[in-house]
């Protein structure tokens, strides 16, 4: 039945088919409501996090006892412009959240790019070459996967100094095996596809086939799903911060701000909860975008759209 249904729908699909699969995925994702909500929210928050600290007179680090422990906006006794209140040292919670988001996003994004590059190139190579190269690389990822990444990360950061590059390196290196696995399995599938065989018969080298033909087909769908991982890495970064193994104070990050504010939970609940809520909102936006991209990718790969 399905073939008939598709036949019947032919004019519609043909009209939209003048696009590569990657563009098609993007197009479907952008058309989805959840993507739009996520996108607007995310752009707003990120824009704010880069603009507001520039134009606002409030310093997120400077201590001002005169304005300490002000409650957030709807509550009794809040003061302009401290929308989300202030902490025990009189620093604006919103401003600290925005700066935290900047660091978090920077670390998340760089980490995922690192994981993506390392994981995908190793995975692609393993899947495409097969044989012992494949076996060695895959056993290595198995070993790495069986060491829980969080233990690895806190161990390394716990015994050495947690700087931003160290955090990125540790998170990125412990996250690459999943990418390697995915890229390998896709490359294995592509290896016997017609276009690869076609290139082989024409006399193209392995490297040429991989870089010029396989990578452009295989990588964009993986990259779409990597958006979800940015959010995951941002959470990991905040966990490290919470444990005291992230970016060190006085630089505010979600993790160290919340860890710090635990002591004031009973008399100033907003110092700990507001940054978390802020983070929850921005990550939900990011995840909505990511899952919309993932669903669009699935629909295209299944040949439904």
């Amino acid at each position, binding site marked *: *039945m399905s073939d008939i249904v598709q036949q019947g729908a032919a004019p519609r699909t043909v009209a939209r088919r003048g696009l590569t699969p990657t563009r098609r995925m993007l197009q479907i994702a952008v058309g989805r409501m*959840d993507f739009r909500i996520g996108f607007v929210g995310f752009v707003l928050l990120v824009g704010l996090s880069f603009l507001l600290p520039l134009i606002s007179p409030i310093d997120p680090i400077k201590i001002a006892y005169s304005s300490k422990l002000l409650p957030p906006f709807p509550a009794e006794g809040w003061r302009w412009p401290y929308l989300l209140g202030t902490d025990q040292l009189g620093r604006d919670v919103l401003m600290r959240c925005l700066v935290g988001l900047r660091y978090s996003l920077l670390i998340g994004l760089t980490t995922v790019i690192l994981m993506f590059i390392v994981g995908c190139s190793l995975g692609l190579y393993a899947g495409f070459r097969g044989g012992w190269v494949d076996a060695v690389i895959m*056993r*290595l990822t*198995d*070993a*790495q*996967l*069986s*060491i*829980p*990444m*969080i*233990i*690895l990360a*806190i*161990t*390394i950061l*716990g*015994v*050495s100094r947690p700087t931003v590059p160290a955090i990125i390196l540790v998170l990125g290196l412990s996250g690459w095996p999943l990418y390697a696995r995915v890229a390998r399995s896709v490359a294995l599938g592509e290896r016997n596809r017609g276009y690869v065989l076609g290139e082989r018969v024409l006399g193209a080298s392995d490297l040429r086939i991989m870089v010029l033909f396989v990578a452009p087909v295989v990588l964009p769908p993986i990259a779409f799903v990597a958006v*979800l991982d940015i*959010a*995951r890495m941002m*959470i990991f970064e*905040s*966990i490290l911060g*919470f*444990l005291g193994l992230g970016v060190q104070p006085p630089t505010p990050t*979600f*993790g160290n701000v*919340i*860890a710090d504010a*635990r002591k004031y*939970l*009973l008399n100033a*609940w907003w110092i*700990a*909860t507001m*940054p*978390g809520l802020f*983070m*929850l909102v921005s*990550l*939900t936006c*990011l*995840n*909505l975008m990511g*899952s919309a991209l993932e669903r669009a990718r*699935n629909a295209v790969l299944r040949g439904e759209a």
Partner: protein
Amino acid sequence: MFVLSFLLRRLLQGSLIILLVIFIIFTLLRVVPGDPARLIVGGMAPDAVVAMKAKELGLDRPIPIQFLSYLSDLATGDLGTSFVRPKSGASLGGSAFDDSTREDRAKVLDLILGTLPMTLQLAALSLAIALSVAVPLGTLGGLHPGRWPDKLALGLGSICVSTPNFWLGIVLTLFLSVKLKLLPAIGYRGFSYTILPAIVLAVEIIPFILRTLTVSVAQVMREEFIQIAPIRGLTRSRTVLLHALGNAAIPLVNLLGVQLGMLLGGVLVVEFIFDYPGLGLLTINAVLQRDFPLIQGIAIFISVMFVAINILVDLIAMTIDPRLEY
């Protein structure tokens, strides 16, 4: 016969992986800065004492020799002795360099096995909570793609996956424990202390189950044998319960194996927030105190568990689906 040869092959593969893990962890801990001998005896101790301690612990030997002797100890089931923890209770720290002898310190394996049941209890409860929420919702979402159960599953999943676990722990403690006094939160004095950490952990697991299940159920429902079932005369309930769910369970079982590492990461943080005396808390304290033998032991123990559980997962998947072969 079939199962035996499978087990044999997987065990060989597994031991290779574990050997690699041991090597990686061991090297990693030797190359990072920080002298464990000085750590034990304390910063104020004279250099001679530090050197003596290092000699006593065998830390002055070349690293390959240390590795080999560690391996041979491992083979007899000896994971070593903690640097800082005494046999009973709280850690000693390193201030007094002359008051504790090596014999008084706890065996790594005992420490691990002592805290493991607590962690297993937590993990089991949170898995039960997660499954009871995510399986019905995920299945419904997969049965009605694009409709409200699907959207609910997607929305709930997105929010859960965006929630930092430590923050959720704090918020739940504030509301359920401090304000409403419904559940106890900090420490452990009975089963009720497991509930709150288990909820936090479940929130972390739920999105993964939801995502996998909605996708796999929706995919199975498009298969020919499900589409054709009503024409063959099967009822819808039978088709969904017996055939669709049975097939959709395979990716879920595999996911639980692969995501085990993530689950463990969650355990670590959650136990830390709630001061829950399990393996996770032990790990974090070991890291904060630079208790190298303990870190090493825990990492190896966990990777052994990881390998074992993955073999188990594959066995379960094989009984669900006879086509699979590993």
